[in-house]
């Protein structure tokens, strides 16, 4: 079986399985040739988006072992397991676990462990299953072909042409020669391959500051056990946060299934929190509103709660101050509503200093704003009628209006009884390239007592309905 993809307007083989390779097919071969060789060839079209999704899922699953996971081309994953291997019983058991689990999920996987990323990658490809201690890389890499360095095609070709076929041969040449012919980058990679330098990997996601996890040798699938685990992990995490004087603004619960599927649930808080009851309640809300319910399948073998974003918090003494309690209650309600409906749906009004009425304020997510810092300036004089409407249309609507009797809006004729104005509002001509002309606002009342806020704008002039008063 082979997979084909369109390369430069010709169908070429992009992947071949073992049987096909044995029969002489290679990657890059035109499909026509392949078919000529093997008329009964099974061909499947390439599906890059699906591939990418699967590879990302595998990377997600690798999170089980360490948060420092990097994508390294479509075929490789780099895991930085410094200091973690003891949790899995040692380096060899850990490597075997990864390889076996991936194979159990149906992938043909090869893995290796070394002190540097380049060495590990090379060994994984050519020497499946090796574990090399820091400092021993040179020894292990010597016999590998130059392709193991994963350099670009031109450089590899150049090395071969120069008669350098193995890493040992390359290493034996003088450094100045190599730099002169092949560039400094190549030398860096060589150094890393031989274990002389080590560069940190760039992980997909920054690792969380604090987390607690629970491993289940027997995967758990029952609701009660999962809830209980989540609760105890939250309490443990809260203790750590308290010890460090931090509160969480964003928490993530990660559920690892035994078959490789990973599920993440995130909650966000408006103010840094470490109260396990509040956090527990928010997770509960989130799980409740999931469009796609949490499916344990055959069970979760690891549940982890991470504090993804933390902030300093002054110690929470039980406050006898009623104001603080009210504040906390409101914050909790906001968080609950945000968790259930989305952060962008629970809003507060924020004033801006702008002339244009629709820009004088904005409705912003309550969780992202310092609620105590909002303040509005009173502009109305006593005994005045309101000068701004209660309901404002986000987009002013065109109307038919002559300053006389009739107003046509939404296909209904309204008889105008009174009008007041104009109030001229300049459209901030100093800010825009092609400025809008000023608007003349009028308050207009119809025979039924409804009060409209209209404006005329432009040369014609055109009339618009902007809002309605109470």
């Amino acid at each position: 079986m082979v997979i084909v993809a369109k390369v430069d307007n010709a169908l070429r083989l992009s992947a071949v399985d073992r049987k096909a390779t044995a029969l002489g097919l290679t990657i890059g071969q035109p499909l026509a040739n392949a078919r000529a060789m093997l008329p009964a060839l099974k061909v499947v079209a390439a599906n890059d988006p699906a591939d990418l999704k699967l590879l990302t899922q595998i990377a997600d699953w690798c999170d089980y072992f360490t948060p420092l996971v990097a994508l390294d081309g479509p075929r490789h994953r780099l895991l930085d397991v410094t200091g973690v291997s003891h949790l899995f019983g040692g380096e060899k058991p850990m490597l075997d676990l990864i390889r076996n689990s991936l194979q159990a999920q149906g992938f043909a996987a090869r893995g290796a462990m070394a002190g540097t990323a380049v060495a590990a990658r090379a060994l994984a490809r050519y020497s499946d299953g090796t574990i090399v201690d820091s400092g021993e890389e040179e020894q292990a890499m010597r016999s590998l072909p130059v392709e193991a360095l994963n350099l670009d095609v031109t450089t590899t070709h150049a090395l071969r042409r120069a008669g350098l076929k193995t890493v040992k041969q390359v290493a034996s040449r003088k450094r100045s020669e190599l730099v002169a012919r092949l560039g400094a980058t190549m030398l860096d990679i060589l150094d890393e391959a031989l274990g002389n330098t080590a560069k940190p990997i760039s992980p997909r996601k920054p690792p969380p500051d604090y987390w607690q996890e629970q491993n289940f040798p027997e995967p758990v699938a029952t609701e009660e056990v999962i809830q209980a685990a989540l609760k105890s992990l939250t309490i443990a995490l809260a203790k750590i946060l308290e010890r460090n004087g931090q509160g969480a603004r964003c928490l993530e619960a990660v559920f690892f299934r035994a078959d490789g599927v990973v599920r993440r649930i995130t909650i966000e808080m408006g103010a840094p929190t470490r109260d396990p009851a509040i956090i527990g309640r928010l997770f509960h809300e989130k799980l409740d509103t999931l469009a796609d319910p949490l499916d344990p399948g055959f069970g979760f073998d690891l549940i982890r709660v991470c504090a993804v974003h933390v902030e300093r918090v002054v110690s929470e003494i039980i406050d006898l101050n009623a104001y603080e309690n009210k504040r906390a209650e409101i914050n909790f309600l906001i968080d609950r509503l945000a968790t259930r409906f989305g952060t962008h749906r629970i809003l507060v009004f924020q004033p801006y200093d702008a002339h244009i009425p629709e820009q004088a304020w904005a409705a912003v997510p309550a969780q992202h704003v310092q609620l105590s810092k909002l303040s509005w300036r009173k502009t109305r004089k006593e005994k005045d009628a309101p000068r701004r409407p209660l309901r404002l249309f986000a987009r002013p609507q065109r109307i038919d209006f002559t300053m006389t009797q009739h107003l046509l809006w939404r296909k209904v004729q309204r008889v105008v009884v009174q009008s007041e104005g104009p109030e001229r509002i300049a459209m901030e001509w100093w800010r825009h390239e092609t400025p809008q002309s000023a608007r003349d606002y009028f308050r207009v009342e119809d025979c039924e007592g409804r009060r409209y806020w209209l404006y005329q704008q432009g040369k014609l002039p055109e009339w618009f309905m902007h809002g309605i008063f109470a």
Partner: protein
Amino acid sequence: MTTLKAFLDKQEFHQTSTRTPLGYDEADLYLKGGLLHGVLHEVFAVIGHEAAATGFAVGLAARVAANKHLLWIRQDFSAHEFGELSPTGLLELGLDPARIFLLSVANASDGLRAANDALSCTALGAVVIEIPGSPNVLDLVASRRLTLAATQKSVTAFLLRFSAQPDASTAETRWLVRAAASQTQNEDWGYPAFEVDLVRNRHGKTGHWLMEWNCDGRIFQSSTADNRIMVSAAAN
């Protein structure tokens, strides 16, 4: 349902009956002192008078909530059709926009759910739910649930209805609102004026009044003009 009704009746008997006067004497008299806290009140807009009904609901909620926070729940559709709630407008009516939270929901079912949750927060003074049309989910059961939630923590609920006909509910009071013509003919229009019809009142009589909202005092008052023109409102 019968047990629920019995429970509700029992609740009323023991409930601390806090009432806030609206400021309009006759109405307050009919309301036995003022608008009752910790129950459900309904405000229906006469078709075409949505902004006026909003203003009236704002006034009621402001009276009841006093200085506490207020949660306004509204459907996205309502904002598109009838306009966004404007904080500058609220400021002009005498409210502090910093005390208002706006929850924008996709449908009535979400709105009711949010309302039931919010009514458990005693730090709120009032919860207003703005629902356009007559969604199926807003039935007698939903109304009872709101009333129960309001009663438990004594947070007052207001249901603001647009383009809908009043039907069976457990509301304490029900108002039908339309805008009233300004009494003054000069440039200064005076305060917002409403023609309100109290069509349901569990503890008193129904009535029909012309009220103004005093933006400075944050209280209702009778019309400042001498001659009151009573126009019969569209009856339910």
